[in-house]
């Protein structure tokens, strides 16, 4: 009992009075105006269906996974969407592990209601075999840091994760057409979920004096407030859900004003989410294009140049490894993991070395957890190694045109290939259509090429 008291967040009387008095003059303690949201930053990781949202000091992560299960008896044609909220003890000293607290349950319910009742996520498209097999989508929300207003942040994280989630494609097969075959992502491109609209939650906090209302309370304001209301709207100004559970009584006019403001905020936040998801999708598409054989010619000659570099430190050795993996990732799509690991590793080495010397491939390699790489610097460094710049740009534009196509294409002729070995390696790597285990094994001639280019130096 003692420990729980020590853990709970108690504001002193002075602090409470200070916050309330400041609000009477429309001043908030972090300098915002009453109807300003904090900065929202949405980051995605390499994996699909995971999003990390920072709303000021509040930090939330969402992970989306899907499994095939049996549908509910009363809805045989629909898939299911379930939310699991974890108020991790790392977010707040008063969060205890184990059974979810009231606040955790309420948060989960509000977000769930916003998505399910408003039919934002299309559950009928998740049905594979009516009455037998449907997709059950599960959203895990981890609250990492409680800086106030968890509902809004968690909602944005859940939406961002659902928008970027891809489920494997499956088809019906077998003798009677009743067997469900799930295609792995290497064979068939996974599909996104169908989401009709984005319900955005906007939380208001009410204070005891003279109907003071603020949007997006921090945890200090939450400790002082008299009541709160969460309105979930979408960009079309449709109200998906409203939650006002007890607390201060509020005038009707104030509620109407809040709903109007919520409409504007919902529109702003929807555009932010959509922009973040768009840029993530283009990065993803670019990453797929990088696995194109036409990009290989550039990488191999780059590999020849980079091998000569200093390889004493094990971390620098990543450059050699990453060059070879970039070639390999072209030949075998299932090695996509490695290709992506390479890009993250490159970013990590950048972080550690501070300078991106050993970079191959353009700005398509990215890692949200480290600083971005200056693409101009990259191009300059690559140009200085004797590669023709216009050909690179041409490749880039060609790459964009061919988004989604996996068929290999003849590499452009104007790339200067330094040694005949490289051409031989090119033809080996330019395999058509099927990729076999043969491609997974590092071909021996690559090693010979590497040794020959080192001997050149």
């Amino acid at each position, binding site marked *: 009992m*003692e420990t729980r008291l020590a853990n709970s967040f108690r504001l002193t009387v002075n602090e409470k009075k200070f916050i309330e008095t400041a609000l009477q003059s429309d001043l908030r303690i972090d300098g915002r105006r009453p109807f300003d949201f904090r900065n929202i930053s949405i980051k995605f990781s390499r994996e699909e269906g995971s999003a990390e949202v920072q709303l000021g000091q509040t*930090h939330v992560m969402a992970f989306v996974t899907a499994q095939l299960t049996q549908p509910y008896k009363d809805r045989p044609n629909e898939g299911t969407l379930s939310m699991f909220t974890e108020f991790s003890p790392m977010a707040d000293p008063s969060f205890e592990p184990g059974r979810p607290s009231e606040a955790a349950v309420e948060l989960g319910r509000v977000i769930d209601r916003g998505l399910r009742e408003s039919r934002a996520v299309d559950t009928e498209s998740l049905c594979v075999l009516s009455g037998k097999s449907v997709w059950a989508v599960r959203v895990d929300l*981890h609250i990492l840091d409680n800086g106030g207003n968890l509902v809004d942040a968690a909602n944005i994280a859940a939406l961002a994760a659902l928008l970027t989630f891809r489920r494997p494609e499956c088809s019906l097969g077998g003798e009677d057409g009743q067997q469900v075959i799930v295609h792995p992502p290497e064979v068939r491109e996974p599909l996104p979920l169908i989401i009709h609209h984005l319900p955005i939650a906007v939380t208001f906090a009410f204070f005891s004096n003279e109907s003071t209302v603020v949007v997006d309370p921090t945890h200090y304001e939450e400790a002082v407030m008299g009541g709160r209301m969460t309105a979930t709207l979408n960009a079309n100004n449709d109200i998906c859900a409203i939650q006002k559970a007890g607390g201060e009584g509020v005038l009707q006019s104030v509620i109407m004003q809040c709903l109007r403001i919520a409409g504007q905020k919902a529109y702003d936040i929807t555009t932010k989410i959509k922009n973040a998801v768009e840029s993530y999708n283009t990065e993803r598409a670019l990453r797929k294009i990088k696995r194109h054989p036409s990009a290989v010619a550039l990488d191999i000659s780059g590999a020849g140049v980079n091998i000569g570099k200093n390889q004493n430190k094990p971390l620098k050795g990543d450059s050699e490894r990453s060059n070879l993996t970039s070639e390999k990732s072209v030949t075998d799509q299932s090695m996509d993991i490695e290709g992506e690991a390479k890009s993250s*590793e490159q970013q*990590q080495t950048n972080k550690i070395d501070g300078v991106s010397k050993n970079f191959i491939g353009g700005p398509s390699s990215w890692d949200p957890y480290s600083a971005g790489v200056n693409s101009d610097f990259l191009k300059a460094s690559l140009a200085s190694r004797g590669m023709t710049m216009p050909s690179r740009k041409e490749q880039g534009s060609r790459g964009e045109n061919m988004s989604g196509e996996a068929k290999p294409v003849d590499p452009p002729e104007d790339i200067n290939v330094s040694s005949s070995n490289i051409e031989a390696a090119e033809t080996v790597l330019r395999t058509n259509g099927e990729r076999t285990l043969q491609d997974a094994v*590092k071909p021996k001639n690559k090693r010979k090429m590497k040794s020959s280019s080192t001997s050149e130096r």
Partner: protein
Amino acid sequence: MEIDRLDGRKANQLRPLACSRNILNRAHGSASWTQGDTKVLVAVYGPKAGTKKNENPEKACIEVIWKPKSGQIGKSEREYEMIVKRTLQSICILNINPNTTTSVIVQVINDDGALLPCAINAACAALVDAGIPLKHLAVAICCCLADSGYIILDPTKLEEQSMKAYAYLVFPNSILSVRPEGSLKVQGEPMEHGVITSGTQGAMSVDDYLNCLERGRAATAKMSTVLRRNLQPQIASDLSKAG
């Protein structure tokens, strides 16, 4: 016999390491540790009054909560909690704050092999960030044994699953001493040769295990330098977080 690793690394090569401190605002100490694609975030809440029922009230107690990325909490999470707790207990100075509990919360962000060593490294960095008194740091590493008796370090998840056996080892970090005697010696052997924690999975011969120990020890020297560099005090950025 050379083994070709999937991502092209050599047998003794580690994945790129990244460590960042002071990530969370409410937690007293926080750190994230990334090894390749495996990423773990740890938060520490400093000494709270009282210990649990079964714990010794004469000493400080460490409580570890392991949160997996998704799914229910089961027996394997309890096992991880126990291992991390015992490891941290041996590096913390437990006599300084008796009858208190320090909570260490581990959140798995991505698991691509060597999860437990990554978590222990992150927990160590988070304890330093929170200012919990420690005797010395710990560095953890994972070694995999292939069928041919070949040992590779820092496996990815695919490698872990396909190998015959693997072992994770935690070594004490060497103390950088300004005194001319150099590193601390315990009974004649330098302190770095001690093993704090060791766990294995799969069957391996005694010689293989000793080989793993040697390789692991050599590799932890590199990790120690990364850890030490990251834990250097940053000027004017460590603010008091008692609120």
